[in-house]
């Protein structure tokens, strides 16, 4: 008990000049204080995560982003699935899955799917690349701020993992109808989903915004 009170006392003296921050969940005000490596700070009212100090966050995210971009290219170049029935063969690319609705007379749906599984994921990967490089090399951050803001807004609309579930459902559905060929893009696609999920988990938005805000102007 004694030690905790004492620590609180020191903290309150030291942080008089520290910048105020607010919990994104409930609005509770806190004062920012740097964390030891590997530690996290949580809101004292609602317990939501405020910020973290991950070792090597920037380098891991950079590695994952570069891997993700490579997998993204592979996924778009190679066929995802193939179907063989009575001598005829059909192949499906990622873009083909988006355009299927176009051929059926639903251009709006085709546009939505292209955004969900191609444009927004690519935008996210490129933004991560720009943001990480900007922080690492202390570039002027106005472009990175603009991109990161929109990436955060578009985040729910990139639906690679939902599409992955759709692919699995389709594979099971077709399995007993015809001979199904699993294409190379299927595997790179699975890798892409994992890579992007890992990058999202590792990235601490608070630290990114703080670093970008300092380099601004």
């Amino acid at each position, binding site marked *: 008990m004694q030690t905790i009170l004492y620590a609180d006392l020191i903290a309150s003296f030291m942080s008089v000049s520290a910048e*105020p*921050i*607010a919990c*994104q*969940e*409930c*609005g*509770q*005000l806190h004062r920012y204080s740097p964390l030891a490596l590997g530690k996290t700070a949580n809101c004292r009212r*609602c317990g939501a995560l405020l910020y973290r100090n991950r070792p090597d966050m920037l380098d891991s995210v950079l590695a994952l982003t570069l891997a993700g971009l490579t997998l993204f290219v592979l996924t778009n170049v190679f066929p995802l*699935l193939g*179907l063989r*029935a*009575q001598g*005829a063969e*059909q192949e*499906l690319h990622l873009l*083909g*899955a*988006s*355009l*299927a*609705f176009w*051929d*059926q007379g*639903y251009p*709006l*749906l085709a546009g*939505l*799917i292209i955004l*969900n*599984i191609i444009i927004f994921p690519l935008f996210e990967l490129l933004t991560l690349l720009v943001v990480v490089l900007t922080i690492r090399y202390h570039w002027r951050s106005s472009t990175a*701020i*603009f991109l*990161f*803001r929109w990436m*955060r*807004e578009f985040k*729910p*609309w990139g*639906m690679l993992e*939902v*599409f992955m*579930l*759709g*692919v699995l*459902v*389709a594979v*099971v*559905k*077709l399995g007993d*109808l*015809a001979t199904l060929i699993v294409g190379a893009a299927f595997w790179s696609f699975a890798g892409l989903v994992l890579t992007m999920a890992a990058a999202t988990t590792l990235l601490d*938005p*608070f630290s990114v*915004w703080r670093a*970008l*805000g300092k380099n*601004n102007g």
Partner: protein
Amino acid sequence: MAENEALLQCRVCGCLSHAPTQLKRFEVMHCPRCGARLKLAQQSTSVEETWALLIAAAILYIPANFLPIMSVYMLGAGQPDTIITGVYHLLEAGQWPLALIVFVASIVVPLLKLFTLSFLLISIQRRSRWRQHDRMRLYRITEYVGRWSMVDVFVIAILTGLVQFGNLARVDANLGSLSFAAVVVLTMFAARTLDEHLIWDVAQQEEELT
């Protein structure tokens, strides 16, 4: 937002800034760090916008469930399927895990979203202080889970793209898939426009008044 300190918090980047003492008519505030638009609580049209999107989604939910979403033709024979008959066919074929996935993603989740968002809106409008933590959690779950409803639309896209063997076997998309996608998109927008901080703010403002 932390109005009581005359501080505004940006919804996008979390940056705190001082609220101006006076705003001119039609003047708009922007976050000093990321440039996103900032709104005072009394400027917020979040509740109205969310209701509008929810009502539109509820109306489209009807054709989404009664119109066929896709048609499977094998050797010239076949018929259009709605979401429900699609689930039923999967059950008949003994593929109950798939039937469960499609049932939850296409029927349970959209309905649950319509109900929970309406419930949250009504509780905000009634200035309820009832279990704010739990309502916040409910909002987070609703926001997260909504996008998974798109799985049915993706399955239709994959099947129509892949199964095009003329008379032998063919899968076509139908109008229901467009209404269904519209329901998903509208409820996702609704979850986004609902300012979840209103769940807390109402109680705080009343505390200051009393």
